[in-house]
C-alpha cells in the first residue's frame, strides 16, 4: 500500500480546533459565566437571569429531542412527557428521600443530604425517564413519520392526563405538588458575600436563579459532551443511516429495533434530567407545564435551529425559549416603563404579541430556510425536494416493506 495511503486522510478524530474557533469558545465561556453576574447586579435586569435559566432548560430539552428527531429521524410530538416524568419523579422520589433522610440523627449529614436531594434525583429521574422512553419505543418500533408523530402525541397527552388525575395518588392532580427541598447545597454559603459598587448602581448577591442557571449550564456542557461522542460513533452513524433509509440500514446489519430503542431511551433521559432541574428550580409543578404546546415548542426549536446540529439546536432553543420571555420581561420591566411611560395594561398587551412573533418567525423560516438556522453539515441539503420516488422510499419503514404496505406494494 505505502504510497496509496496518502490519497486520503483516514485518521479518526475531531481534526483539532482552529484559532478562531478557540477564541470564540473562550469569549463564549466568559460570557456564559459572567454575563448573568452582571445582570444579577442591576435590579432592573435581574429578571433576565431567571429567563436565562429557563432558556437553559429548553436547550437541554432541545438537545435531547435532537437525538430522536435530528439523528434518528423519528418525529416525536410527545417529548414533553419525559420532561414531565423527570419533574414528577424528582418531586415524588425527592420528597420521599427528604422524609427518609429526616430520621438521620447527625445534623450535619442530614442537612447535607437534604440539600443535595436534586443531585441524587438526577440519576434516578434520568433512569425513570429512559425506561419510560423504552416503554413508549417498544410498541411504536414499526412506525415512522406521521404515524409515529400521532402515537407520540397521544403518549404525551396520556402522561399529562395521568398527572392531572392524580395517578396512584402520586401527583396531587391539577393542584400540583411542591418540592420540599429548602436550599440546594452550597446556596447559603454562596449568598454570604455581597458586592456593592454604588457609583454605577451595582449590587450583587448570589441568588437562587443564578444557582440554577449555573446548574443548567453545567448540565448542558455535560449533554453536549455526551451527544457529540454518541453522534460520532457506531451508534450515531447507525441512527443517521436509519434516518436516511431504514431498509438499507437493516441490510448492512443495523438492528433497527435496538437503534430505535437507544434513540428513544437516550432522548428521554435528557428530557428527564431537564425535568429534575425544572422541578427544583420552580419548587412547584403542575400538569399545565407539560402541555402539548410545550412539545411543539421543543420540536420547533430543533427544526428552526437545524436538525442534527448541536449549535443550531442551541440557537433554536435560545430564540424560541428566550424571545417571548424577553419580550414579556422587557415590556413589563420597571426600567422601560419609566423611560417610555408604558403602563401595566399596555405592557401586558405588548407581551401578548410575543407568540405572534414566534409564529411569524416559524412561517418565514420554513419557507426560506427549511434546513434551519445552522444546519448540520451532513443534513444541509436534504430538505430540498428531490425525486418523488426517492423521497417515498426513504420514508418506508422496514416493517412496511416486509409487509408490502406503504402503497407501493411488493417489488417482484
Amino acid at each position, binding site marked *: 500500500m505505502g504510497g496509496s495511503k496518502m490519497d486520503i486522510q483516514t*485518521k479518526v478524530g475531531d481534526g483539532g480546533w482552529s484559532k478562531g474557533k478557540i477564541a470564540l469558545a473562550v469569549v463564549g465561556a466568559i460570557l456564559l459565566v459572567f454575563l448573568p453576574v452582571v445582570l444579577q447586579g442591576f435590579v432592573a435586569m435581574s429578571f433576565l437571569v431567571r429567563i436565562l435559566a429557563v432558556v437553559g432548560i429548553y436547550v437541554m430539552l432541545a438537545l435531547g429531542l435532537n437525538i430522536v428527531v435530528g439523528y434518528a429521524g423519528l418525529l416525536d410530538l410527545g417529548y414533553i412527557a419525559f420532561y414531565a416524568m423527570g419533574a414528577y419523579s424528582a418531586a415524588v422520589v425527592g420528597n420521599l428521600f427528604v422524609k427518609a433522610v429526616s430520621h438521620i440523627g447527625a445534623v450535619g449529614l442530614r442537612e447535607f443530604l437534604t440539600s443535595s436531594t436534586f443531585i441524587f434525583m438526577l440519576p434516578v429521574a434520568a433512569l425513570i425517564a429512559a425506561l419510560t422512553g423504552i416503554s413508549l419505543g417498544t410498541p411504536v418500533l414499526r412506525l415512522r413519520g406521521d404515524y409515529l408523530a400521532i402515537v407520540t402525541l397521544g403518549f404525551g397527552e396520556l402522561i399529562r392526563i395521568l398527572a392531572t388525575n392524580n395517578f396512584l395518588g402520586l401527583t396531587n392532580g391539577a393542584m400540583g405538588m411542591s418540592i420540599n427541598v429548602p436550599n440546594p447545597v452550597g446556596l447559603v454559603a454562596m449568598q454570604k458575600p455581597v458586592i456593592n459598587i454604588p457609583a454605577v448602581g451595582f449590587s450583587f448577591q448570589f441568588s437562587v436563579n443564578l444557582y440554577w442557571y449555573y446548574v443548567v449550564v453545567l448540565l448542558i456542557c455535560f449533554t453536549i459532551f455526551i451527544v457529540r461522542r454518541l453522534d460520532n460513533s457506531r451508534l450515531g452513524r447507525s441512527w443517521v*443511516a436509519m434516518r436516511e433509509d431504514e431498509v438499507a440500514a437493516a441490510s*448492512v446489519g443495523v*438492528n433497527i429495533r435496538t437503534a430505535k430503542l437507544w434513540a428513544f431511551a437516550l432522548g428521554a433521559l435528557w428530557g428527564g434530567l431537564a425535568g429534575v432541574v425544572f422541578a427544583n428550580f420552580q419548587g412547584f409543578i403542575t400538569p399545565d407545564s407539560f402541555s402539548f404546546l410545550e412539545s411543539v415548542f421543543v420540536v420547533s426549536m430543533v427544526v428552526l435551529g437545524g436538525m442534527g446540529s448541536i449549535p443550531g439546536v442551541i440557537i433554536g432553543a435560545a430564540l424560541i425559549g428566550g424571545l417571548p420571555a424577553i419580550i414579556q420581561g422587557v415590556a413589563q420591566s420597571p426600567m422601560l416603563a419609566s423611560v417610555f411611560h408604558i403602563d401595566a395594561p399596555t405592557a401586558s398587551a405588548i407581551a401578548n404579541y410575543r407568540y405572534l412573533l414566534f409564529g411569524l418567525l416559524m412561517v418565514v423560516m420554513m419557507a426560506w430556510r427549511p434546513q434551519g438556522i445552522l444546519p448540520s453539515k451532513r443534513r444541509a441539503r436534504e430538505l430540498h425536494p428531490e425525486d418523488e420516488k426517492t423521497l417515498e422510499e426513504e420514508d418506508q419503514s422496514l416493517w412496511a416493506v416486509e409487509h408490502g404496505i406503504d402503497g407501493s406494494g411488493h417489488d417482484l
Partner: protein
Amino acid sequence: MAIVEATNATMQFGGLKAVNDVSIHIDEGEIVALIGPNGAGKTTMFNMLTGIYKPTSGVLAFNGVSVAGKKPHQICKMGIARTFQNIRLFANMTTLENVMMGRHTRSTAGPWQAILRGPGFKREEQRTTDEAAKWLRFVGLIGQANELAKNLPYGQQRRLEIARALATEPKLLLLDEPAAGMNTRESADLTKLVGRIRKTGVTVLLIEHDMKVVMDIADRIYVLDFGELIAEGKPVEIQRNPKVIEAYLGKGAEAMLAQQA
C-alpha cells in the same frame, strides 16, 4: 459445496404467487445470474434470501442454515450482503460513511464505549475507517470519500452500493440489476469489477437485464418467468433455450429468429 440451497421456495402475496416452487443452488465461488422478464419474481427471491420476506413455504438455506424468519441484520451478519434495484444509499452521509456503515456488524462498540472512548473504541473506529477506505479503493471511489453520496453520478452510486455491501465481509453478494442505466463502457467496467469480487472469494448472485454482462460473467443462469423456474444452465445453453426465448419475446419468436439466421 452449495452455499445457497433453495428447495421449493414459494412466496405468495394474497392471490399472487410471486415465486412458485423454485429450487436453486449456488456453489461456493460461482457467479450465478438470475434473469427473467419484469415481474418474474427475481427481486422477491432476493428479498426472501435477505430476510425482508419470509417465504410462504419451502426452504432457503445459506451454508446449511435456514434463513426463514431471520431479520435482515441477522442475515447480514451470517454473510449475505446485497444491493438494491433502485439504489438505496444513505444519501446525506458521505461516501466514506456509507461504506463505514457496512462495517456495522463487524464492529461492536455500544453507547458506553462511544462515551468513554477507550483505546479499544479508538482502535475499532480506526479499523472501521481503514476497511471502508480499502473498499472505496477497491471500487475506485477513494477520491470521492468525503463527497455526499447523493452528489455522486449514477454509475459511481452503483459502485458505492457494492463497496458498502462488500464492507460487511459477505460470503455471498446479491447484486440487483447492477448494470441498469449504465452505458456500454460503465457496464464493461462493472463486469471487470464483478470478476475482481469473485477473486476475493465472494460468491455472487446477480439479477441483470443486460445480456452482454450476464453472458460475459455468469457461470450459470437461472431463468424465472411468472414466479416459476423455466430454465437453468450455462450461458450458451440458455441463449438457445426455446422456453427462454418465448418468455422474453413471445410465442413464435424462436421460429422467426431461426428464419432470420
